[in-house]
């Protein structure tokens, strides 16, 4: 287990290096800079600003500087928000996104698992068809369709929730559902498939023959095996939640990282954009590692590989 973790950690270093290099040189090739929009700067002032951000040095020097700072976890100053570093901006916005992501994931796992288990136990009855039809909808509808539609119904017509904001606990409900819907549907499908496979095995028949209650059959005998595919889906799901939060945060006006990223894109705040990309990459790689560890723990077969 320790070997797996160290091996995977060493693998992430070249990946981050490549990501950092790619983004750095893309940024250098970019036409137009963040300071183009400043009012009528004289050449002297401009040179001074550039010197302040180290933009007057040769490119390779800037690149080495950037990598050096990066190695220490410093993503540099924001080009747009004077006096702020990218790190500070990231840490101020990330908790909001994290909270949203966790709610969405919790929503997806809770409802997805329940629906999937029920569908598997009631195979080929209405208890199976109804949740699975909903799942098909959930998988096909993107967040930027469901988000506005949910707003239309629950905020505008029924006025149960506010249309935007992130102050009260109930402001969390619609964004979390919007973000989690796709994953709920997917988890439900995976759970159904996994449980059906396990429930048809001999040891389940034995358990039933010995008079184990339905609850015990599900809880003690099938869940662990039936959930393997769900666990391996969580890795890609986290990556998707990150991307999805860009849209959800824009729709509901949530002051999270996704909204910051989109704004930085519009403002051509290159250090901020790069910093966010790198941050997302690290986040997702770490999450995938955690998911892999959980998988090995759940499935002893993998320990020998």
């Amino acid at each position, binding site marked *: 287990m320790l070997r797996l973790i160290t091996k995977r950690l060493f693998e992430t270093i070249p990946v981050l290096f490549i990501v950092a290099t790619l983004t750095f040189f893309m940024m250098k090739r*970019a036409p137009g800079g963040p300071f183009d929009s400043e009012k009528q700067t004289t050449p002297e002032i401009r040179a001074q600003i550039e010197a302040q951000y180290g933009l007057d040095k040769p490119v390779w020097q800037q690149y080495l500087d950037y990598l050096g700072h990066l190695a220490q976890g410093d993503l540099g100053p924001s080009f747009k928000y004077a006096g702020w570093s990218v790190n500070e901006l990231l840490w101020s916005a990330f908790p909001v996104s994290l909270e949203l992501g966790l709610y969405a994931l919790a929503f997806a796992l809770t409802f997805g698992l329940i629906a999937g288990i029920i569908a598997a136990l009631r195979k080929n009855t209405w208890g199976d068809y109804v949740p699975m039809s909903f799942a098909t909808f959930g998988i096909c509808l993107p967040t*930027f*369709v469901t988000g*506005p539609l949910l707003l239309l119904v629950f905020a505008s017509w029924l006025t149960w929730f506010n249309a935007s904001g992130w102050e009260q606990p109930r402001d969390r409900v619609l964004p979390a559902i919007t973000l989690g819907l796709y994953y709920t549907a997917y988890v439900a499908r995976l759970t159904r498939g996994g449980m059906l496979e396990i429930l048809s095995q001999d040891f389940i028949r034995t358990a039933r023959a010995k008079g184990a209650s339905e609850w015990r059959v599900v809880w003690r005998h099938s869940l662990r095996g039936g959930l393997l595919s769900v666990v391996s889906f969580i890795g890609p799901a986290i*990556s998707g939640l990150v991307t999805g939060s860009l*849209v959800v945060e824009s729709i509901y006006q949530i002051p999270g990282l996704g909204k910051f990223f989109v704004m930085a*894109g519009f403002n051509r705040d290159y250090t901020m954009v790069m910093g966010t*990309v790198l941050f997302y*990459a690290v986040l*997702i790689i770490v999450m995938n590692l955690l998911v892999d560890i959980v998988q090995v723990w759940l499935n002893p077969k993998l320990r020998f590989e």
Partner: protein
Amino acid sequence: MSPPQPITEVEAGHSLWQDAWLRLRKNKMAVAGAIFVLVLALASLTAPFMPGLSYSNQNLALGATAPSAAHWFGTDDLGRDQLSRLLYGGRVSLSVGLAATLVSVLIGVLFGMISGYIGGRLDALAMRFVDILYALPFTIFVILLMVIYGRNIYLLFIAIGAVEWLDMARIVRGQVLALKKQEFVEAARALGLRKRRIILRHMIPNVLGIVIVFSTLIVPRVMLTEAFLSFLGFGVQAPQASWGTLIQDGARSWEEFPWLLFFPAGCFSLTLFSLNFLGDGLRDALDVRASKD
């Protein structure tokens, strides 16, 4: 007792493709999906030749109106006909879907083919590379590209295509690994054919079926990415419209003019449904057993 009837009709044999076609025809959802997409594509294609349909004609005096006999899907706040904009948006969305899918299929097939055929160390390295790429948030890289090089529809084709090839590469590699061990490839190699020729003449035709099937499943994914980018404002630029930008416009004014959200969102969702059903139907019809992972 009459003599047995001579057999006049010989049951015709079915080729693989005929079988697949028969099976596909029985799948009602897939057929409905195919018809919907075809009708929509035709309507979008012919939109510029229809009199009275324009995506940019404004009528400020009219403003936003609910659906009526003159404007079936209503008009937006600038008085533009929503149906026309939807059809023109369809041109953009569908062409991005096709073009980017083409790019992704090219990259995926080549990558998977070379990796699988050469095998060994290179294969292990290439597949590890794919694994790592799977973990990265690619849509964000596409946004980075669009931010840095400006919003440009051709860049959009390439950028989306460049990030959606991973599944295809895996599937093709799996197929090639299986094909490689078959006798006819062995024979070709024994005849001394070059690798390039074996790949081009013997491998590619044999993976074509699978590639076509999975391409139909890439199209909706690509369209989703395009709409996602356009929704965030990184896609096509006004006055051009894609379904993503139309949904964005609708989402901004859903309180006053819900029809501006309803029609593009509905149209887009129906298209995604249809393409997914069609792709699944094709996969079942051709009985492609390649796993989805």
